[in-house]
């Protein structure tokens, strides 16, 4: 049946309503505010390679936050991503230094990331450890392993011409770097999995109400384990890229990255209570964090204010998400009312 032609007003209203119910409305608003501040107060923001640099800076956190979003949606939290990322970076760098082909070194690093995620998942779902404790233990284990292997001395001397490209220090084509391409593909694939596959629905179901999900026949333990495996894989990919960008792998490479990844996911609309989140939101959340640091540096704000600004952003993002949730509820109620009046 051909669809009924819609008036311009109706199209505008529908677009507006779609925006209001979008869970990433909060972070979009925040990004817009930052962009406006930058536009008016810091003309240099749009100069030269700044935007390009900004994206290059945040790719690692972006990739980590994609995996973290899936873990948060399924009702968990992964504190080990920074340490696992560093360990995988160390594995890749050491193998290349020992003469292994890049491809094999990267496969090995990814396998380590998958193994770390699998262990996290099994500790949580089979042994029954709380997510926080299991991933905290993995954080210590992965970090300690790298310290023992390197004795605190950074791994160096592994950079090859190809690795400069993989690390994003040389563009792939035009302004596009390999890390940007990887982040985009990863975001699209994971976004598609969450939005359009049974597994995606299971992640949301497990995070919203694990008991109800189990009673509906969803293999809750397996679904949650898969979320951690995905997070470990993302950490490995991030590690491979960061080792290329950094030119060395110090033992403390991953310090603080877990907090940034969690912050990006939360800013992007994910909930610590589970059942809520969006990959696109996490990507924007990571961009928001990078943008804030960029503005601070460009404005010459003393670095002591950086942490305060980050805290304020987190609170603003949660408030913006809350307001967006209210707007979403109101819009959905309005739509339901309209539908029921049409039906009547």
């Amino acid at each position, binding site marked *: 049946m051909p669809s009924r032609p819609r008036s311009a007003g109706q199209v505008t209203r529908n677009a507006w309503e779609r925006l209001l119910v979008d869970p990433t409305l909060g972070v979009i608003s925040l990004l817009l505010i930052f962009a406006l501040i930058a536009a008016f107060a810091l003309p240099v923001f749009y100069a030269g*390679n700044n935007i390009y640099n900004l994206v290059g800076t945040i790719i690692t956190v972006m990739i980590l936050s994609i995996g973290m979003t899936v873990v948060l949606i399924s009702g968990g939290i992964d504190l080990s991503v920074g340490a696992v990322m560093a360990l995988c970076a160390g594995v890749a760098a050491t193998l290349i230094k020992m003469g292994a082909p890049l491809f094999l070194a990267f496969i090995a690093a990814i396998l380590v990331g998958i193994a770390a995620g699998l262990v996290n998942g099994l500790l949580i779902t089979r042994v029954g450890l709380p997510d926080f404790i299991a991933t905290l233990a993995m954080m210590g284990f992965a970090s300690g392993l790298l310290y023992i292997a390197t004795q605190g001395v950074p791994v160096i001397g592994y950079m090859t011409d190809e690795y400069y490209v993989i690390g994003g220090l040389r563009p792939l084509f035009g302004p596009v770097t390999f890390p940007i391409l990887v982040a985009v593909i990863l975001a699209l694939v994971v976004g598609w999995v969450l939005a359009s596959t049974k597994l995606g629905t299971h992640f949301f179901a497990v995070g919203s109400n694990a008991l109800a999900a189990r009673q509906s026949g969803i293999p809750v333990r397996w679904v949650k384990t898969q979320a951690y495996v995905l997070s470990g894989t993302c950490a490995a990919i991030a590690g491979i890229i960061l080792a290329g960008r950094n030119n060395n792998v110090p033992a*403390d490479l991953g310090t603080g990255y877990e907090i940034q990844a969690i912050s990006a996911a939360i800013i992007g609309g994910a909930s610590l209570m589970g059942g809520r989140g969006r990959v696109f939101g996490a990507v924007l959340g990571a961009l928001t964090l990078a943008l804030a640091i960029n503005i601070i540096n460009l404005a010459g704000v003393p670095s002591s204010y950086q942490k305060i600004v980050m805290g304020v952003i987190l609170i603003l993002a949660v408030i913006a998400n809350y307001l967006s949730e209210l707007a979403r509820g109101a819009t959905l109620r309005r739509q339901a009312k309209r539908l029921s009046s049409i039906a009547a």
Partner: protein
Amino acid sequence: MSQENGSPPVSSRTRPLRRAIALGASAALLVALAACSTVDDGSSISGKGASGSANCGSGDEQSAITAAVKGRTLKVGFAPPILSEFYTQVEKSAFNRMSELEECYGIKWEWARQGALNDAHSGVEAVGIVENFISNKFDAVFVCSAAAHATMQEIYKAGSEKGVDFYQFNSTEELENPSQADDPTAGLSTVSNIGYDDRWQSGYIAGQYLAKALQGEGQIVQILGPSGSDWTKLRQQGFEAAISEFPGMTIVGSADGGYVRDKGLTAAQDLLTKFPDIAAIYGENEDMALGASQAIDLAGLKHWDGTKGIITIGADGLISGMDSIRQDKLSATVDVNSVDMGRTMIDTLFQHEILGMTVAQFIQIPTVVIDKTNVDWAEAKIAASQAGSGKY
């Protein structure tokens, strides 16, 4: 720092510099003496320097000291703020000296290392680590920590009462004891503090190097460590003091590089966006300076070639940075002398714990700016100190 802000006139800056140079020269002499043969009151400690075969002194000396050692085993704790390349260099250099003393005088060592794994700058972990060494009845502990001065001194005091001697290394005691000339031991519960003055032996000489290379003209940006860090505070103070002596030089911007390369790279990229015409980047440590060097490459700008381009200077003196200096990616670095620091720590410990000697409360080791002209010598010296079993 400008004079309008109330800083002392330029000439007064030379006094601490002279003092630093004098202290550095004295320390160098002490180190040389310790490394070669006899030290002050007739007691001998022999060695082989950073490399070469062990020289244990004359037969009589060797027998006398060996008798004093009595085959004793010293149980020593090593607590750096973090396990990094710099502290590994210090530790390996210490190992090198320990093995020389073991070979000459039969002293045995039991060594335990424990550094913070999470936040090197919080100092919280350091407190726990040092307390752990105390409860395990170590003879002596070497500590470098970002924990509050007063907190650590109280812990040292409590540990000393239980028979543990404390030695600080690479610390920032110069900040906590401005009146050390009047009372060098005021408020200190350590046997000795082995290090250098971050202001005049690191920040200041980096600034002087830039000024000389740029002939007193140009804009500079700084990549600093975390705000609140004492190392950052002191090095920045010395650097700004040096730059303030040259009216043609201006520090136009600074950003936090968190003492790590990727943050240093990001900070430098932001600063280069805002100030594309700068002449120099001062990275307060070497990793951040190497990050800044990458930012120069990414921005398509030129590194300093001796006449033009951007000069990048860092501070630490890491083996991993030497190739970058050779390739003109890093113009220079202040070598804060991990080699002599490690060796002097062990010599001081040996003198005090075994020979019962008094040792100076502040032992300042010499530092030097390394650039392409002396990188081979500097690298060879560090590399030689890292040779050996590498374990204790």
